């Protein structure tokens, strides 16, 4: 049986970073001559690496305490890390929750209690009280506003890239540099299907305590963005290519760009408001 360390979120972060790097390489391979774009791309990669590093350091921080608890408790603890990780708690709430769980596990293991006796054999139920009291429940409203925020920010970024690369920042460039249907639809699918699918799969893996080969199922959601990006790049069917490269009337004026910015701010505020409400 694979010695599962339960660091799903860390592995996903690494995978997303790699996907992002691959995408940047592809963009750069199309002769990007604008140094500002290159700098922005490099900065984004650095941010992704920092995210991976912070995540790794967070795991190491409580590592010494976790090492002392029995393996049966360790496995369940890491499953709970995944569940808490995908909740909407802020970092302090997540840290406090995991400290409480670790305190319970440390003392229960020293009393020679079985981990299933402590959790009642149902991780979702065990953690529901902790997540609810910290306002960390993942809901449809939160997922939709999160997806909307991701999608709008991403297409704004792509628009900014095209405007700066081909025309410089001007109203004329905003109107002339249009987004391709393929790009927009790809990121629409990634934001509204891939991210929620990935989050619910991670949660399912943690609450059902997937082990061994079953953990490979976590990779299935990643087939979606990989397939989409591959189709975008590789497809040479003329009709399909024309469809992918056809312009989409989105962000085609300064007014629409401002509307998109407002939508991104509103969706961000909805996410925050929902967190406060719970």
């Amino acid at each position, binding site marked *: 049986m694979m010695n599962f360390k339960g660091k799903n979120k860390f592995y996903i972060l690494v995978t997303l970073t790699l996907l992002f790097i691959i995408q940047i390489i592809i963009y750069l391979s199309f002769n990007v001559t604008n140094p500002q774009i290159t700098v922005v791309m490099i900065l984004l990669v650095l941010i992704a690496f920092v995210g991976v590093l912070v995540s790794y350091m967070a795991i190491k921080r409580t590592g010494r305490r976790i090492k002392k608890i029995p393996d049966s408790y360790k496995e369940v603890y890491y499953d709970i890390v995944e569940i808490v990780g995908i909740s909407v708690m802020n970092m302090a709430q997540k840290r406090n929750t995991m400290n409480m769980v670790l305190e*319970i596990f*440390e003392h229960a293991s020293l009393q020679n209690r079985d981990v299933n006796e402590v959790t009642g054999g149902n991780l979702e139920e065990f953690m529901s*009280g*902790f997540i609810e*009291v910290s306002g960390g429940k993942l809901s449809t409203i939160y997922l939709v506003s999160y997806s909307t925020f991701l999608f709008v920010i991403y297409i704004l970024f792509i628009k900014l890239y095209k405007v700066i690369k081909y025309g410089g920042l001007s109203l004329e460039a905003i109107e002339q540099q249009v987004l391709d249907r393929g790009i927009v639809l790809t990121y629409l699918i990634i934001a509204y299907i891939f991210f929620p699918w990935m989050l619910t799969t991670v949660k399912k893996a943690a609450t059902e305590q997937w082990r061994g080969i079953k953990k490979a199922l976590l990779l299935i959601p990643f087939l979606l963005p990989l397939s989409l990006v591959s189709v975008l790049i590789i497809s040479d069917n003329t009709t399909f290519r024309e469809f992918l490269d056809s312009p989409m009337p989105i962000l085609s004026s300064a007014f629409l760009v401002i509307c998109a910015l407002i939508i991104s701010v509103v969706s961000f505020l909805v996410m925050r408001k929902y967190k406060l409400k719970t």
Partner: protein
Amino acid sequence: MIDKAQILKGLLDGCILKVVSDKESYGYKITEDLKHYGFKDLNEGSIYPVLVRLEKKGFVSSESKTSPLGPKRKYFVITEGGLDYLNSFNILWGQTSAIVNNILGGTSDDEF
């Protein structure tokens, strides 16, 4: 089928405050005390979130101390605000339980 969790939700705050009002206690001990009183289905997953909520409301305060077993754990004590809440809970429970018993027993206030 009756939702026991929903009924307990309103009662656990008062019960936990009563347990903590006697002396400083910690999560597992509170759970065991409540089980001893009759709440057999409780585990730490039910109690710790309530302690967090009570602390947020200012009804209990906590301090992290080294336990006899070695690792640190949080010890909870009731506050003045918690005592006031407990007194109100006592009064309300007395009134409500009497009314519910009347209804279930098929008697009314007039018959007393």
